[in-house]
């Protein structure tokens, strides 16, 4: 039991388990029979309210939809702990305050753009094409359970990072054809601790119990921010130098990328490291003249795709099956 001011510790319970019993069933059995002090959150017990996410053998999962026996068989033990990256209030109950603050910070509501006869029907209802609705289908499944926030690698070292759930929520609006406030929202999340702080560790997308795929939302949001011209940050410079490098040589040109991403002045700051790498033969030298043989093919691909200017959206297709 973790109480403010006490050192946290693990407590063991023995329970009888039936095939099909869930972690939430186990928690109830413990609370009802063995230990009334055990505290945890729960509500719908059908994986839609997001109350009961906990760490089960180290991975965040919904207690209500996780069966005990397969977990136990896989790990040979059953350790249930509060979510990571949240302060603990008591036992399995964690403090969601900063999680919600971050969700609120992205202005999580539609600011409708001006409508026209094309966008609304005669009764005033929005007209939304199916393929447009699909773009935000995955992110609209989010139940704010906090699993992604708990698993997030950036969050573990940067508690100001806005986090995958809030960023998925950004795409919920940024990807909505009705939204009229995109520029402002995208500019906001392009600031420090926003979209460009994600290290692409894929944990969020792996652990999400509702297949929201926050990483794809982050990638989509990044692309949209670049398209909207919000480019004055290291994240975009990093991307653009890659895009340029591949277009020019077919390969990644590490040296140019470093200089471009960090800016000339800042790249000087990594000179000590650079010198050391040079000594070991590791300092990447600008790749300006070397390119792959088939570079013309690569250039053709760039030309064709950029000519169309369109985006195929596989990431938000309900059947694309990316994620856990």
């Amino acid at each position, binding site marked *: 039991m973790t109480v403010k001011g006490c050192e946290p510790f693990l407590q063991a319970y023995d329970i009888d388990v039936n095939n099909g019993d869930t972690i939430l069933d186990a928690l109830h059995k413990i609370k009802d029979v063995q230990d009334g*002090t055990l505290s945890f959150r729960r*509500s*719908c*017990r059908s994986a839609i309210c997001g109350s009961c996410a906990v760490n089960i053998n180290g991975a965040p999962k919904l207690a209500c*939809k996780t069966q005990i026996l397969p977990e136990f068989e896989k790990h040979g033990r059953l350790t249930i702990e509060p979510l990571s990256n949240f302060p603990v209030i008591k036992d399995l109950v964690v403090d*969601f305050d900063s999680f*919600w603050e971050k969700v*609120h910070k992205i202005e999580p509501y539609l600011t409708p753009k001006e409508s026209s006869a094309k966008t609304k029907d005669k009764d005033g209802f929005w007209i939304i094409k199916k393929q447009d*609705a699909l773009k935000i289908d995955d992110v*609209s499944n989010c139940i704010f359970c906090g699993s992604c926030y708990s698993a997030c690698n950036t969050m573990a070292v940067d508690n100001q990072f806005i986090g995958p759930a809030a960023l998925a929520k950004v795409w919920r609006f940024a990807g909505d054809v009705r939204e009229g406030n995109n520029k402002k929202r995208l500019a906001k999340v392009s600031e420090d601790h926003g979209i460009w702080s994600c290290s692409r560790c894929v944990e969020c997308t792996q652990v999400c119990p509702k297949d929201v795929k926050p990483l794809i939302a982050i990638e989509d949001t990044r692309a949209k921010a670049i398209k909207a011209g919000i480019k004055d940050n290291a994240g975009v410079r990093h991307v653009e130098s890659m895009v340029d490098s591949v277009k020019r040589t077919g390969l990644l040109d590490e040296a140019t990328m470093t200089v471009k991403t960090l800016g000339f002045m800042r790249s000087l700051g990594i000179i000590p490291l650079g010198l050391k790498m040079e000594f070991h033969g590791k300092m990447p030298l600008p790749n300006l003249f070397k390119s792959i043989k088939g570079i013309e093919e690569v250039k053709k691909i760039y030309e064709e795709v950029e000519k169309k200017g369109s985006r195929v959206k596989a990431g938000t297709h309900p059947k694309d099956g990316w994620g856990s």
Partner: protein
Amino acid sequence: MVSHDVLIIGAGLAGMRAAIEAARQGLNAAIVTKVHPVRSHSVAAQGGINAAIGENDSWDAHAFDTVKGSDYLGDQDAIEIMCKEAPKDILELDSMGAIFSRDEKGRIAQRPFGGAGFPRTCFAADRTGHALLHLLYEQVVKCGIGIYEEWFVLSIVIEDEKVCGIIAMDIRTGILHRLQAKAIILATGGYGRVYRNSTNALINTGDGMNLALDAGAPLMDMEFVQFHPTTLKTTGILVTEGARGEGAYLLNSIGQRFMSKYAPNALELASRDVVSRAEQQEIEEGRGIDGCVLLDLRHLGEEKIKERLPQIRSLAIDFEGIDPVKEPIPIKPGAHYSMGGIKTDLSGATKVKGLFAAGECACVSVHGANRLGGNSLLDTIVFGRRAGISASIYAKENNIKEFPDYQLKETAHSIAVITNRRQGERGSVIRDELANIMIKNVGVFRDKERLFAAKEKIKELKERYNHVYLEDKGDIFNTELLETIELKNLLTIAECIVLGAINRTESRGAHFRLDYPKRDDETWLKHTMFYKKDDEIKIDYKDVAITKHKPMERKY
């Protein structure tokens, strides 16, 4: 002391819709809720929300279907309002940014639902409640409405027959707080946990109905409990009526679509009371499979199941180990919805001045003896909005009242009595016994003998409740204490259901008496009213509002 113009208790669809309305009126509104808003049970609604927005549909047809569905117990003036205002409310949700599923032309799609003569149910795949609850939460954030999150309301304080505020416990600290308010809106949802087999969230313990009873506002029609025909075998988790709306079949153990016997025209899409009884009869007559019948979606095809019913598919796979693309799902009826609740007028006002109610905890009554699928979400939105408006008007016309000191002491004392008990019985035992007797004796089929046995059992459990003790003596996040207070609420609700059911010697809608299988309009075309006096439940009756539709025999 902190004070608000309008305090809303509960943050489901009705509560948040009411709060948004109060904020729009320029008032200082705040929400008190025992769980974070998006954890509210509205989130679990699946199938959809009804509104006559189709080309050849009309609000009048919607109203008739609702009146018929209610087995003529619904108040027709209220039903007319709901059906007339529905399209505008859907339009508003759409403007706020709701993600309703679309048809080929990009317009809001509508699916057929039970008891409806027209495909009238707007939906967001099979997670409509989730879509709308998150939508309204977004709007609450946008309006900057204050939320007392994870605060549990212990009592509504009344002075001179008017509300003056509430006493609530901050669950995180265990500290009791007083909040003053000019008007209070109860929007606490249902009480499904009274029953063992229930689609309801574990938080649905009828708290608001008890607060109202204690404050002097009567409940109405509590004997009418809807049993949803399709709930999962082991967990009782809901499988939306939308599944049948999309074309799923109900089969018995010999592979018959048995609904043809019970509702030759509407078949699987008869109203819920009819379908649940048919299933129960099949099971009791030996044509069930392990206490269940089968819901077969296979002929819909994988693509349609994935597009229209993705959540149902996940739920069946995760909780029952069955992929509905490949196998039929074993299902059975389970407690789902409370037609009864806190009696309100058309504006959401209760008998107590300054006290309003909306949503499942309230009873206007638009659902009468049986609610149609797709009408509960509509009820929350229409009457949540209306309660928000009338509470705001009331708040503008009245001042903050003095908060009497003794109330806090009394409430604190009542908690201390529980926490100070050093021995006795664990509340969970009583809770389980209650849930078991209710499903066994006060379920789909009822009779005098079983009802009286339930009454006796509840009396016994109420007595035993006085000896419940807690293992958790701490202040911080003491969920054992919360569950114990909720248990008291469940006991009172169960008592109302049973008393109402004993008295009503007829069968109407969801209330079916094996010993009185016919509807009896002469004696029983009336609402049951429940009052609490000196800790006893007293019953009275009230006429039904009938405007256009004279009671007729109900056939599907």
